[in-house]
């Protein structure tokens, strides 16, 4: 159960090798109340290593860490794979953290590759998000944390394929949150700016860039106060609010930089 200060005892991460998700898991486990962490992702050595790292945390209290084979693209399997996680015990918080960036310029010439970005980031999230939402609703409590992105707030020339999948995901998560209002389930949309992770390695840093640990802190703080939308860093809320209202010709110029 989540406690009065937002600590969670059990955590399910979809996208179990995500830097942001693992930073969040470490941050949550630091208070010694987390007893079960499930990392759902495509099987890999990296995943097992992440699980091993988390087992070592917990400050004396034992944390059960399991890995589950989960592929965002295989939507037919989501009910079965994730259903088993919920059947084994209540989940206090789900972190929907998987996503791929794609390669914008290459993908523009390879529509199938572009569709795969959408398949993972949006379609896979709709399916797994609904499976988790329904399971959370049945247990009458829990938080679903959805990692969106400021890239979804206004599509940019440089990454509109990725951005549009996050726009879809963001809208889906907001609507889902409204549909679950009063059910005991809380949906939190997290909109980080440029985060320095393995996903963005090698890309030029954007202004107001942030780190996985900063996003993790914001998620933990958001869980505590039951926030519905969290911007990281918080100032991006106002930056994006301005950008959203720029006329197209001006935005094209600004976004080019």
């Amino acid at each position, binding site marked *: 159960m989540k406690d*009065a200060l937002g600590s969670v005892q059990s955590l399910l991460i979809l996208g179990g090798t995500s830097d942001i998700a693992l930073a969040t898991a470490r941050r949550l486990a630091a208070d010694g109340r987390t007893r079960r962490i499930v990392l759902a992702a495509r099987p890999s050595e990296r995943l097992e290593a992440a699980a091993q790292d988390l087992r070592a945390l917990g400050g004396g209290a034992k944390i059960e860490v399991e890995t589950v084979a989960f592929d965002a693209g295989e939507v037919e399997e989501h009910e079965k794979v994730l259903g088993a996680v919920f059947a084994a015990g209540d989940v206090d918080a789900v972190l929907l953290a998987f996503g791929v960036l794609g390669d914008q310029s290459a993908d523009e010439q390879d529509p199938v590759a572009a569709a795969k970005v959408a398949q993972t980031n949006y379609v896979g999230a709709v399916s797994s998000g609904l499976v988790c939402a329904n399971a959370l609703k049945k247990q*009458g409590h829990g938080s679903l944390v959805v990692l969106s992105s400021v890239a979804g707030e206004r599509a940019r020339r440089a990454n509109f394929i990725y951005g549009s999948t996050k726009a879809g995901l963001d809208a889906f998560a907001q609507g889902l949150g409204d549909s679950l209002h009063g059910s005991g389930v809380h949906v939190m949309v997290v909109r980080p700016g440029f985060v320095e992770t393995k996903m963005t390695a090698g890309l030029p840093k954007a202004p107001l860039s942030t780190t996985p640990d900063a996003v993790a802190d914001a998620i933990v703080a958001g869980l*505590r106060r039951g926030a519905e939308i969290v911007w990281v860093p918080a100032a991006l809320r106002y930056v994006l609010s301005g950008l959203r209202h720029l006329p197209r010709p001006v935005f094209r110029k600004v976004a080019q930089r």
Partner: protein
Amino acid sequence: MAADPDTAAADSSPSLLSGWGRTAPTAAQVVRPRTREQAAEAVATAGPRGVIARGLGRSYGDPAQNAGGRVLDLTGLNRILAVDLGTGLVTAEGGVSLHALMRALIPLGYFVPVTPGTRYVTVGGAIGSDIHGKNHHADGSFAQHVASLDLLLADGSVRTVTPESDPELFWATAGGMGLTGVVLAATLRMVPIETSRLAVDTFKLPDLDALMEKLAGTDADYRYTVAWMDCLAKGSRLGRALLDCGNFATLDQLPAKHRADPLAFAAKPLAEVPDLFPSGLLNRRTIALANEVWYRKTPAARSHLATVAGFFHPLDGLRDWNRVYGRAGFVQYQFVVPFGADAALRRMVERISRAQAPSFVTVLKRFGAGSPGYLSFPTEGWTLALDFPTGTPGLDRLLPWLDEQVLAEGGRVYLAKDARLAAADLPAMYPRLEEFRKVRAAVDPHGVFVSDQSRRLGI
């Protein structure tokens, strides 16, 4: 036929429930039985996520909620079944409030054996939390005044349990947070009173040492004592407090105008608090100001006659007073440490003051001998109760630090107020937990009775 909200409808949609602190709400199907049969039916058909009884929802945390399961709203079982004016034995259903008991019995010359800081708790809740009051040093906890109770068990049967007939089940149920069954009715030993007024002496104590000394010195002379502490006071004023000490007044202590109706009881909530308060309204500045005003306006020592409501339940004058904390809610923290742990108590008061953690109602009291309940809270020693707005900066560090001090002294925190204790700390705080689990496993082998708190703490 029109739907009757009072029948034990099994198909009602889930409602969001939280404790009085308004933190961590979860959804459950609420069923409000009006008869024992309906209650038994609701338990028998509870489903895989079980059932827990709920009274007036005054527990601060999550013991009376059951996410995804069923919650039995016991306030429909609200009849006083028998009154024996000769012996003072009163039998009441589990959903009868202490307010209702007072309204019915004070005019007849009987008072409840134990009352907490609110009258709006039920008899079932009072037993489940084995509540204490300002008279703990003299009279012990609530369950010690229960002669017998009718307990609805997981299999739908009802067992009459007395401390003599089945001491294990009785003392597992006392303080057992509703996890052994549903208290359908209980017989209480009421306390005879001559008048409905209290002769109160209030002492103003300038610091913690003076307060602790005075509390120790007044216990023998007064049945009811409690100190209201200013937890934000610093330095030489650390722990300054007002100490209220009282006894029920005898007839000859009443002024002439009250003698015609010495047992009058007319308490009712004065005003409803609207749900409009911003979450930050109660903060260190506003509470420090309130504490200052209230400390200064009180003379060094005074004696007066108080009403039951004025002395025992000052916050009941405002219905839904928890709303002043805003929607973010608040966290209560009450611990007890043995009398030898004076230094630790001082350290904790110092840290709370240094952190400037604003507790609006801070109460210090001395407990007498502990209750035999396996999970009952009171044990002999100092008990301090605090409440903090959930958004208080640093609260997530302060409370675990307090847990550590309490554990190191062999103390414990109160489950009826808890909303955030770590499961790992429970066995050390409640050393009789295993005995409790054994009794519970015997009467409820399939774990039908379950609450958010029992899930969280692994009770």
